[in-house]
C-alpha cells in the first residue's frame, strides 16, 4: 500500500527510539553531508528523517532550512516504494516533483539521489541524499560512497542510541543506589564489613551512629575493642556466636547484645553477619553484615513481659475460676484458683492437656459441663448461673460461668475459655432487695394512706395508688406536679412552714391541712413527714382525715353534751335496785362527791345517808314501788372525805324498762346553795355588827369630798358624830403632810370605780392623829347612793407597829453590815494569822513571827472597838414611842 509505510507505527517507533528528530545539528553528521556532497560533486546534501508529518534534516549541507512538509519530499519515495536507492535525474520533467517549490523556484532542483537510512531491524528512517540544480548522473563509485555514508549515518544513530541508553541506565542506577541508601538509612540498619586478615572494621554512617563511634576511632578498632564495649553479661554469647560463624562452612548468624555508648548507657544491638570470603584453607577472610538498634523494641518486649506477669498475677490471685480447653475438652491453661479447686476435689490438679472431667464428680455433673462446652461450640458465647447446694454445710452458693470461644490468627475456633465467678453475695443481696422492694410495693399498693416522696422543690417523685382514692388523681397525674398546687389556699402558709421545719430536720407527725380533690371538694389531710438529707427528698405519709374530722366534730359535740349533762353538772344519775344497791353511777359522782362510779358498785345507797335523814329518805324511797316518781327533799349524803353534803333527789321507777330494770335516781348537790344561803344570813349579821359596832367607818361624800353620810362608828373611832361630819369637807381633817397624796388618790376615783388609799393621818376629834386605811368606791351613777362611798379603818396601831419594825430592820441591817464588814474583817484576819502560826510555826522566821503577833494584837484591839460600837448601836435600837 502506497503511503502506508510512512505511518507504519513500527517504523515510527524505531525512528523515535534514536531520539534524533528535531535535535540540534551535530558536527559529525555535518561532516558526513559535507563528505557526501564532495563525493557526488553536488552543492547540496541532506540527512533527511521522515516521520508521519514532515521531513527533518539532521544535517543540511547547501541549504539553510532544516525541514519541509512531506508534500515537498523526495526522500519519502524511498520509504513509500521501499527502495534502497532513489535517483531523479531531472525533477522538472517529472510530474511527481515538478510542482515542488524547490524545483519550481529557487534553487531550482533538477537532480536528486538518496540512499535509504535503514535501521538494523529493517525500517527505513529517511535518507542521505544529494541534490543539484543541474541534470546529473552518478557513477557507481559515487553511489557506493553515498550508500556507505548512509550506513555510517545509521551506525551513528545506533551509537547515539546506545550512548543514550547507557546514560539512562547510569542515571537509573544512581537513582536506585540513592534509593537503597535512603531505604537503608530509613530502616536504621547499619552495614559493617570486617576484614579478618587485618582485623579491621568498616562501618556505614548508620553503623557508626548505632555504635556511637566516629570514623577516626574506627581506624584502629580491633575485634578486642569491640568485645570490650559489649555488656559483660552478653559477651560470652557474642563470642560463641562469632566463633560458630567463623567456622567453615557457616551460614549466616545473628546475635543480640548490649553495646556501651559514649554517654555510658547501653544500647541493645541486633547483629546479623555472614562470612563473605574464605581462604583456600577454609579460613575466613572477610565477613560483613548489618546491625540494628533494638533498644526500644527490647524495652517494649520487657514491658510486655511485665504486663503479662502482672496479668498472670492478677488472674492467679482471684478466687474466681478461669480456664480454657481445646476442642477435645482438654485443658489448655487455667488459673491457680481452678487448679486449687480441682486439687481439692480429686487430690491432684489437672495437667495441661488432660481432659477436664474428673472421675471424682458425679456423672451428671460431668454431663452438664459437657453440654455447656458443646453449647459454646455450637452457639458461641453465653453465660449460665448455677445454684450450688452444699449438703454438708447446709448453705447455697451461686456461680456465674461465662463461656466464650477462642480463635487462632486465621479465625478458626481452637478452644473455649471459661470464667466462673462466685456471685453468692450479689444474688443474696439482690434477693433481699427484691423482697424488700416487693414488700414495699405491696405496702404501697395496699395502703389506704397516701405514701409519697417529694423533692426539695416540692415536686412529687413517687406516690402510690391511694392518691386516686383520696385526691382523685392517679399517681401518673400527680408525679411531677408541685404539692402546693393541691393544697387548699388557706392552708398554704402553714403547710409551707411545716415543710420548712421538716426540711430543717424536724420529724413532723400529725400535721393537718386540707387538699383540693380533683372534683373540687376539700379533703382534710393528716401528714407525717420526714426529710432525708442524703437523698434530698421528703418521705411523707398522708391520711384522709375526713372521717376523723367528722368524728372529731361528733365527739366534740357529744363531749360537750356529755360534759354539760353529766360531768359538769352537779347531778348524779344512778340506778339502784329495789333494795337500794347501786347498779350504775354516772361519772359526775367523781366531781360532786369525789368518788368514782366504781367505788359505789356493790354498795347500798342508804349506808351513805346521814342517820338523821335516813328514816325520812327510806320512807320516801319505799314509795317508789307503787309510784312512777318520787321527790326526796334535802338530805345529807357522805362524800369520800366523810363530809356531809346536802342533796335533793328525784326517784324514777324504771324497773319494767328492759334496758334499765332499776330505779333511776337523779340527785342534785344543793350543798353550795344551802351554804350560800347560810353565809348570806351570817354576813348580814356580820354587816350589822360591823356597821354598828365594828372598827370600820362608812361614809358617803360627793365629788368634792363633802360628807353626805357617815356611819355611827365614826363617833366611837374618831370621836366625831355623823351629824358633825355631814356638810364638812373630808380634806379639812387630813394631815398636811399626807394631803397631796390623799388628794391625788381621791381624784382618781372620779375616773375608775375603786381606789385603795394607803394609810394616812386623820385628825381625831380630840386633836391627835390617827392612821386611816381607806377604800373609796365611785357610786355617783348609782341612784340610791349618788356619791362616793368611803370605807375607812383605823390602822394606827398597825402603822405604828410597821414603823417600829421598819426602824428595827434598819437597825438590824446596820448591825448585820457591821458584823460582816467590821467585825468579820478583824476576826478573819485573826483566824488567818492563827492558822499560819499553827501550820507554819517552825518555818517562820523570828521577825515574821514577831510581825504576826503584832498583827494579832492589832486585830484584837480592833474587835474590841467594834464590839463597843455595836453595843451602843443596839442599846437604843427599838423604842416604839420614839417613832410615833
Amino acid at each position: 500500500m502506497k503511503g502506508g509505510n510512512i505511518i507504519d507505527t513500527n517504523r515510527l517507533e524505531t525512528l523515535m527510539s534514536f531520539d534524533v528528530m528535531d535535535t540540534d545539528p551535530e558536527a559529525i553528521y555535518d561532516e558526513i553531508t559535507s563528505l557526501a556532497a564532495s563525493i557526488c560533486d553536488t552543492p547540496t546534501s541532506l540527512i533527511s528523517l521522515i516521520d508521519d508529518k514532515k521531513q527533518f534534516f539532521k544535517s543540511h549541507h547547501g541549504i539553510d532550512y532544516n525541514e519541509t512538509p512531506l508534500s515537498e519530499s523526495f526522500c519519502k519515495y524511498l520509504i513509500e516504494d521501499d527502495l534502497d536507492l532513489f535517483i531523479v535525474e531531472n525533477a522538472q520533467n517529472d510530474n511527481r516533483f515538478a510542482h515542488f517549490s524547490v524545483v519550481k523556484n529557487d534553487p531550482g532542483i533538477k537532480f536528486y539521489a538518496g540512499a535509504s537510512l535503514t535501521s538494523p531491524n529493517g525500517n527505513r528512517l529517511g535518507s542521505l541524499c544529494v541534490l543539484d540544480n543541474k541534470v546529473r548522473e552518478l557513477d557507481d563509485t559515487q553511489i557506493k560512497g553515498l550508500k556507505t555514508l548512509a550506513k555510517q549515518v545509521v551506525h551513528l544513530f545506533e551509537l547515539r542510541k546506545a550512548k543514550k541508553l547507557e546514560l539512562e541506565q547510569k542515571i537509573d542506577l544512581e537513582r536506585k543506589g540513592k534509593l537503597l541508601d535512603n531505604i537503608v538509612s530509613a530502616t536504621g540498619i547499619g552495614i559493617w564489613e570486617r576484614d579478618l586478615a587485618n582485623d579491621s572494621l568498616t562501618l556505614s554512617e548508620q553503623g557508626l551512629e548505632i555504635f556511637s563511634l566516629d570514623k577516626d576511632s574506627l581506624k584502629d578498632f580491633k575485634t578486642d575493642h569491640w568485645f570490650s564495649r559489649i555488656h559483660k553479661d552478653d559477651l560470652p554469647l557474642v563470642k560463641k556466636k562469632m566463633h560458630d560463624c567463623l567456622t567453615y562452612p557457616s551460614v549466616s548468624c545473628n546475635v543480640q547484645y548490649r553495646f556501651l555508648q559514649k554517654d555510658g548507657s547501653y544500647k541493645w544491638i541486633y547483629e546479623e553477619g555472614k562470612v563473605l570470603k574464605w581462604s583456600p584453607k577454609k579460613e575466613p577472610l572477610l565477613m560483613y553484615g548489618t546491625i540494628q538498634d533494638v533498644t526500644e523494641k527490647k524495652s517494649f518486649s520487657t514491658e510486655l513481659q511485665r504486663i503479662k506477669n502482672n496479668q498472670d498475677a492478677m488472674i492467679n490471685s482471684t478466687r474466681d475460676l478461669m480456664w480454657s480447653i481445646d476442642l477435645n475438652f482438654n485443658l489448655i491453661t487455667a488459673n491457680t484458683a481452678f487448679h486449687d479447686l480441682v486439687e481439692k476435689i480429686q487430690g491432684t490438679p489437672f495437667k495441661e492437656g488432660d481432659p477436664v472431667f474428673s472421675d471424682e464428680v458425679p456423672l451428671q455433673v460431668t454431663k452438664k459441663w459437657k453440654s455447656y462446652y458443646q453449647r459454646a461450640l455450637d452457639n458461641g458465647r453465653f453465660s449460665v448461673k448455677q445454684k450450688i447446694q452444699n449438703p454438708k454445710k447446709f448453705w447455697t452458693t451461686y456461680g456465674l460461668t461465662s463461656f466464650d470461644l477462642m480463635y487462632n490468627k486465621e479465625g478458626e475456633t481452637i478452644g473455649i475459655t471459661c470464667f466462673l465467678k462466685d456471685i453468692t453475695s450479689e444474688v443474696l443481696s439482690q434477693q433481699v432487695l427484691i423482697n424488700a422492694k416487693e414488700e414495699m410495693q405491696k405496702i404501697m399498693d395496699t395502703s389506704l394512706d397516701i405514701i409519697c416522696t417529694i423533692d426539695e422543690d416540692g415536686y412529687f417523685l413517687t406516690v402510690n395508688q391511694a392518691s386516686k382514692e383520696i385526691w382523685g388523681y392517679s399517681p401518673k397525674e400527680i408525679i411531677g406536679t408541685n404539692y402546693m398546687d393541691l393544697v387548699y389556699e388557706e392552708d398554704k402558709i402553714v403547710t409551707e412552714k411545716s415543710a420548712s421545719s421538716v426540711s430543717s430536720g424536724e420529724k413532723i407527725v400529725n400535721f393537718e391541712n386540707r387538699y383540693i380533690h380533683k372534683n373540687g371538694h376539700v379533703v382534710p389531710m393528716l401528714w407525717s413527714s420526714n426529710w432525708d438529707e442524703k437523698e434530698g427528698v421528703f418521705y411523707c405519709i398522708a391520711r384522709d382525715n375526713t372521717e376523723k374530722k367528722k368524728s372529731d366534730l361528733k365527739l366534740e359535740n357529744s363531749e360537750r353534751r356529755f360534759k354539760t349533762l353529766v360531768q359538769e353538772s352537779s347531778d348524779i344519775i344512778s340506778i339502784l335496785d329495789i333494795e337500794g344497791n347501786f347498779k350504775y353511777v354516772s361519772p359526775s359522782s367523781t366531781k360532786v362527791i369525789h368518788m368514782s362510779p366504781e367505788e359505789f358498785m356493790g354498795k347500798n345507797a342508804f349506808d351513805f345517808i346521814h342517820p338523821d335523814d335516813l328514816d325520812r329518805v327510806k320512807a320516801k324511797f319505799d314509795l317508789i314501788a307503787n309510784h312512777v316518781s318520787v321527790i326526796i327533799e334535802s338530805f345529807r349524803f357522805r362524800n369520800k372525805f366523810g363530809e356531809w353534803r346536802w342533796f335533793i333527789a328525784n326517784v324514777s321507777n324504771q324497773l319494767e324498762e328492759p334496758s334499765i330494770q332499776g330505779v333511776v335516781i337523779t340527785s342534785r348537790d344543793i350543798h353550795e346553795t344551802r351554804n350560800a344561803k347560810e353565809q348570806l344570813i351570817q354576813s348580814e349579821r356580820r354587816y350589822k355588827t360591823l356597821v354598828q359596832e365594828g372598827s370600820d367607818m362608812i361614809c358617803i361624800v360627793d365629788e368634792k369630798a363633802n360628807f353626805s353620810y357617815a356611819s355611827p362608828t365614826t363617833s366611837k373611832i374618831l370621836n366625831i358624830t355623823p351629824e358633825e361630819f355631814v356638810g364638812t369637807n373630808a380634806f379639812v381633817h387630813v394631815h398636811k403632810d399626807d394631803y397631796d397624796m390623799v388628794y391625788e388618790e381621791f381624784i382618781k376615783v372620779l375616773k375608775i370605780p375603786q381606789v385603795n388609799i394607803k394609810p394616812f393621818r386623820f385628825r381625831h376629834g380630840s386633836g391627835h392623829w390617827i392612821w386611816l386605811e381607806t377604800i373609796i368606791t365611785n357610786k355617783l351613777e348609782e341612784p340610791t347612793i349618788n356619791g362616793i362611798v368611803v370605807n375607812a379603818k383605823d390602822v394606827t396601831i398597825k402603822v405604828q407597829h410597821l414603823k417600829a419594825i421598819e426602824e428595827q430592820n434598819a437597825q438590824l441591817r446596820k448591825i448585820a453590815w457591821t458584823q460582816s464588814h467590821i467585825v468579820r474583817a478583824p476576826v478573819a484576819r485573826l483566824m488567818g494569822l492563827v492558822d499560819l502560826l499553827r501550820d507554819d510555826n517552825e518555818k517562820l522566821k523570828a521577825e515574821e513571827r514577831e510581825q504576826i503577833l503584832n498583827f494579832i494584837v492589832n486585830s484584837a484591839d480592833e474587835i474590841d472597838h467594834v464590839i463597843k460600837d455595836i453595843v451602843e448601836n443596839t442599846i437604843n435600837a427599838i423604842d416604839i414611842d420614839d417613832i410615833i
Partner: protein
Amino acid sequence: MNYEILLIEDDPIFTFLLEKGIKHADLKGDTISFLNGKLAIEYLNKEYSDQKNYIIFLDLNMPVMNGWEFMDELESLASTDNCMVFVLTSSAYRDDIEKLKKKPLVADFVTKPITEYLLKGIKENIEGNFEQNQTT
C-alpha cells in the same frame, strides 16, 4: 503554765496572809499586790496582754476604787479566756455581792480568811479552766 497573780486588797494583813497562802499552794506565777482597784487597773492598762493568764484576787471594800468599780473597768479589758477573778469577802453576807455574781469574769467568791484548803480548791479551778482552754 504560768499566771500573773494580782492581789487587790487594802488590808496589809490579808495581803500578807494571801501571799503566804499562794506560796504554800504552789500557785506558780508572779504575784503583784495593789492597795486598791485603781492601782491595779492602771497597771493592767499598761501591761495587759492576751498572751498572759491573769488570776485576780479582789477585795470589795477598798478606798479610792472599790471592787465593783474595778470589775466594771476590767470587763472592758479582759476576757474569760485568760482571766479569772476570785472575789474576797469578809463575811458570808452576800447581799452586796449579788450584782457581781452574774459577771462571767468572776470565777468564785471566797470568804476570808483564805485557808490553804481553799487555795488548793482555787488552784484546781484555775488549772481546770486554763488547761481546758488550751486544748480547745
